[in-house]
């Protein structure tokens, strides 16, 4: 049981609870979808630990299945964020198609026997670019927004920190996995724990902002 309680799972579960409380009655389906997405994330994490610790089997297949879900949800949310500025439906479809091509090609190349790390890195880079583009749109618009309480801004902050840190870690830290760290885990795992905490704290705060925005609007 102790294996299931890690920094990652705790952060994910905490974020799931916050999303459940804050987004349950949200009018926008795209925000409500995060409850389901975080539930799937927690389940995937649980299954991953089960396969690794109990079945003593490699768990890459679980994460391989999760990757397209992650790609779809994150990109749909970015599409929703861009919508007030302009619609990028064709770009979204084109990117999802490209992702599918990369994903299945890599799976075939690896004979379904390893994690699709290239596609995962590609997704991370694309999400970083999407985040930067969102910042550009924010800077470009004339309207002033109170960013300290602006839900989409905090969601994007968490996303860019996680994926930027993730890509950098994957690129520069591959060799560090060989050296056992002081916490009995690899150095990369520790960095990912920190990044996960940043991601889920930002997302949780973003959900709280969304909830507060909704309640302050309805009180008028």
């Amino acid at each position, binding site marked *: 049981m102790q294996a299931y309680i890690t920094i990652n799972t705790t952060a994910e579960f905490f974020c799931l609870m916050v999303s459940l409380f804050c987004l349950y009655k949200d009018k926008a389906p795209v925000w409500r979808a995060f409850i389901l997405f975080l539930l799937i994330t927690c389940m995937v994490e649980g299954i991953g630990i089960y396969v690794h610790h109990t079945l003593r089997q490699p768990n890459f297949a679980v994460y391989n299945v999760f990757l397209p879900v992650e790609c779809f949800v994150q990109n749909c949310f970015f599409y929703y964020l861009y919508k007030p500025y302009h619609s990028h439906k064709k770009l979204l479809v084109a990117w999802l198609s490209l992702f599918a091509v990369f994903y299945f090609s890599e799976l075939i190349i690896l004979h379904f026997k390893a994690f699709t790390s290239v596609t995962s890195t590609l997704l991370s880079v694309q999400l970083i670019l999407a*985040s*930067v583009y969102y*910042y550009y749109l*924010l*800077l470009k618009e*004339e309207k*002033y*927004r109170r*960013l300290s309480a602006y839900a989409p*801004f905090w969601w994007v*902050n968490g996303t*860019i*920190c996680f994926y*930027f*840190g993730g890509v*950098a*870690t994957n690129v*520069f*830290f591959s060799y*560090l996995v060989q*050296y056992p*760290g*002081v916490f009995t885990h690899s*150095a990369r795992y*520790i*960095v990912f724990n*920190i*990044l996960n905490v*940043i991601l889920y704290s930002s997302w949780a705060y973003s959900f709280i902002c969304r909830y507060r925005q909704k309640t302050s609007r309805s009180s008028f």
Partner: protein
Amino acid sequence: MQIQAKDLTFLVLISCVIFLIAPVAIIIYVILYNHRKKKHKEEKEWLKTTFENELLKSQMEVREQTMQTIAGNLHDNIGQLLSLTIVTLSTINPNDPSRVAKKVESATQLAKRATNELRQLSRLIHGQELISLGLAEAIKFELDYLRAAMLHEITFDSNYVPKGERSDKEIILFRTFQEVLNNIIRHAEATAINVAIKQEEPYLTLLIKDNGNGFVEEEVLKEKKGMGLFNIQKRAALISGDVSIITVPGSGTEVKIRIPY
């Protein structure tokens, strides 16, 4: 090469910080830029309020100026003419029929002059609304009224074409023109006034020249007599315009106001 556990922890922490520098820097930049946007918005609102206040003040001053002219004219011209008419009529002696006709004729002439003055005045009241026909029309009317007093030789030249809807800039420019004209009438002792409006995209230039006393700009401003000058410059700045004053004591003054239009 072996990496010590202590070194590894340190390396992991340093790496985390380094990897997060870029996204955090972007986030801080967005926040700072957004803060500047807020300040810019506040400044814009302040400028808008100042502009609206100044516009309102200008409209009220135009009205006040008209009222002053009307009051002055009623007292100095029409009042005098009617008094003279009363005196003329009261001196008619029915027993002296040979002079009755002459006196009635004289009273009639005085009454006619008073009627003419009243007509002019009534046009002046409507003149307030002339600005809606365009800047040139309003300035022309103001100059026509001044010309009627026959104290100045006045010329007016304009290639101005109104741009459809009434512009707030025009009201402020018109009020500035009145301020300059008042200065000429009160202080310059001029005998000739030349006014010109030049419309050359993207600017509109208003030129007012007189052959009066002139003045030393620095002295006027230093002695704090220059509220009129200060107002002219302030108003022009408010509509993003610039003012140039060329004056030589004894040789007259040239005021040039240029605004984007």
